[in-house]
């Protein structure tokens, strides 16, 4: 079984390399700056298609926040980065079933926006 998934792992690693080179982090910063809802949606989309170590999302999220991007957008970005795996989707589909993979990623995408809104709202209530 493990040897059977090696081609999938190698394929995902190669695909990650290609996407990281095509979408550098500083380019992503230019996608924000509209209103809160659009920024949250953009954050969720950007996080969903981004790849790399989760710590990169914190660093980039911190930089975006410093550049004036809203906390809702940054939260949606870092949550979708770690919960939605569009690059890994082929691997997830092959190994866990396509219906499961598509449903799970769709739910995670919607959740990232909801979690972002709830987190910022809770912090707003607490302060």
């Amino acid at each position, binding site marked *: 079984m*493990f040897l059977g998934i090696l081609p999938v*792992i190698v394929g995902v690693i190669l695909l990650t390399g290609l996407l990281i080179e095509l979408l550098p982090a500083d380019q992503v910063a230019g996608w924000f700056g509209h209103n809160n809802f659009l920024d949250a949606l953009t954050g969720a989309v950007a996080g969903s298609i981004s790849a790399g170590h989760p710590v990169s999302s914190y660093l980039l999220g911190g930089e975006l926040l410093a550049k004036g991007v809203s906390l809702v957008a940054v939260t949606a970005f870092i949550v979708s980065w770690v*919960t939605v795996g569009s690059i890994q989707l082929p691997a997830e589909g092959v190994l866990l079933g396509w219906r*499961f993979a598509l449903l799970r990623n769709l739910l995670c995408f919607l959740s990232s926006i909801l979690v972002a809104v709830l987190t910022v709202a809770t912090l707003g209530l607490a302060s």
Partner: protein
Amino acid sequence: MEHKQEKAKGFAGLLFMLSVMTLYGVVFLLNEQLARDALDYAGKLLSRLAPVLALVFILFFLSNLLIRPAWVRTHVGQHSGLKGWTVALFGGMLSVGPVYPWYALLGDLREKGMRSGLSAVFLYSRAIKLPLLPVMIHYFGLAYTLVLVAYLLLFSLLNGMAIEKLLTR
């Protein structure tokens, strides 16, 4: 039947890898430097992943050696109850490295009777990276980190429940 499924998965995986290699070939023809940089990044990523892949390989080996379908059914199976949700939640939080090697382990456990909702809980709770929390606190503050982690825990469970409902329709 199980052997047939594994063969199909192996073929699909091989096809996927060949498709990505073909894509590299096309990119190489269009922009040689981009393809070289991407390949360089992938090579570095692979070397960083090697220890994690070794760990997953060992877990696979142990899983096949020690974990029997009866154990899976008891701990993360249809009637595992609260224990199953807890095992999946903390298992995801404690799992290390990139996600794709874990798909294979979850797929293996699912074939032995793991609930699909618990696979979703495991994958979602991986969003809580315990060793990285100090970095998050540094950038966003303690209050933000605590609130976000609480919501991630809650949504791990909600996603698991939703997946199970939707898949059994």
